[in-house]
């Protein structure tokens, strides 16, 4: 059983593929109208998948690093579906899974991570604020264990994912008095990036599984997106400022 998002409007950034697509589909399956925000046309495929399952969705072309795009995507939610209840910032740099040494990280790699994750979060929060306040809504940000325990391979990714937790906790304090909740989700899921990494290094799957008490890598929709739906729903109405870890028990240090 999943929590209900009937009559809710949810916007998901980076919803053209991977975890974002899984979240969009799960929210639609729970009854929400989903605005699929993505910079490329693959957002249309997510919308088609949702509609073929009987759900409601529409695509907004949206590069989260451009403030006007995010403002337009929220305006699109208002025009298409009458408002916005839940803003989900899932988009990350396309270079997120590119291994790097911190001493060699250049300005371009760094700035791309910061722009998509952090400037994107700022744009999403600003654009959604009035709608979320009016409708006692919530914001959800996708983070990562790389942000909590550091990362041997992806230092820039770890930095921005940790910063999103600082963002989440701070905005939860700021918006709590207005009845708006802000939470983060830290997933471990079988994404296209993960599938590619395993293709290159078949032993990776086994190494990962060994570190996961539940012994497997999660499914984006059945294992991770359901947790996002829970946080978006009234079932989580007393939960704010938290990081909900949906990773089979891999990270237990909190």
């Amino acid at each position, binding site marked *: 059983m999943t929590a209900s998002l009937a009559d809710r409007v949810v916007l998901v950034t980076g919803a053209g593929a991977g975890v974002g697509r899984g979240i969009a589909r799960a929210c639609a399956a729970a009854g929400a109208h989903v605005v699929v925000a993505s910079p490329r046309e693959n957002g249309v495929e997510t919308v088609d998948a949702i509609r073929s399952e009987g759900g409601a969705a529409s695509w907004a072309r949206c590069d989260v690093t451009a403030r006007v795009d995010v403002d337009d995507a929220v305006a699109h939610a208002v025009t298409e579906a009458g408002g916005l209840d839940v803003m989900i910032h899932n988009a990350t740099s396309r270079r997120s899974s590119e291994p790097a040494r911190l001493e060699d990280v250049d300005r371009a790699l760094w700035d791309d991570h910061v722009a998509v994750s952090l400037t994107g979060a700022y744009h999403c929060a600003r654009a959604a604020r009035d709608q979320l306040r009016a409708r006692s809504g919530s914001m959800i940000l996708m983070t990562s264990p790389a942000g909590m325990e550091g990362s041997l391979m992806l230092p820039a990714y770890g930095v921005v994912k940790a910063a999103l937790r600082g963002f*989440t*906790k701070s905005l939860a304090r700021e918006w709590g008095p207005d009845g708006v909740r802000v939470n983060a989700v830290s997933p471990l899921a079988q994404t296209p990036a993960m599938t590619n990494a395993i293709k290159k290094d078949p032993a990776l799957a086994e190494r990962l599984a060994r570190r996961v008490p539940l012994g497997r890598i999660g499914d984006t929709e059945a294992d991770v997106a359901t947790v996002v739906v829970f946080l978006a729903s009234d079932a989580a109405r007393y939960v704010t400022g938290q990081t909900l870890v949906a990773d089979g028990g891999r990270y237990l240090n909190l």
Partner: protein
Amino acid sequence: MTTGVRALVTGSESGFGRAVASALGDLGVELVHDDPVALVVHAAVDPVALEPRTLAETSSEDWQRSCDEVLRSALECAQDAYRRLHGSGGSLVFVTPTIGITGAAHLVAYAAAVEGVRALAKSAARQWGGARIRVNCVAPRAELLAPDAGPLSPDVAEPALAGVPADVRAVASAITLLAAEGIVVTGATIVVDGGVVMIP
């Protein structure tokens, strides 16, 4: 214990950075600008970045100054520290106020950046351990970094060490502890606020 250790402190020309440098000097650390160094401390603070405002009142320029610039300055310090320390090893310490851990209303951009810096330290610790570079964070209350900004930290608890000053000397003591020989600590955050914030 760390008497005579050669240290480079960023931001030591003014404000919080100067106070940290001076307190380290009082503990016997030798403050230098040139190699060799065994300790690098990132204590540079832009007080403007800590000016509280709601997210709704935060302009794109404010956001960049309080978030992007704070992160970039930490990256530049880390990369510079690597160049100085990777031959002989040493200690790199970031000052990361506790508002990153607790979150703080009206400081969303800065608190986000602080958590980013703590993760930067952890990733650096993991990548540079082989070069015997240890990377840690020292977390005082944010009010210590920007004394003129008014109250910044959320009211989460009374300090356990009531009446004991959690001032810049506490920051310096923790830094020297982290610079000591034989301390097998890296990727850690030491909170120096007298026991207000306790990490889970």
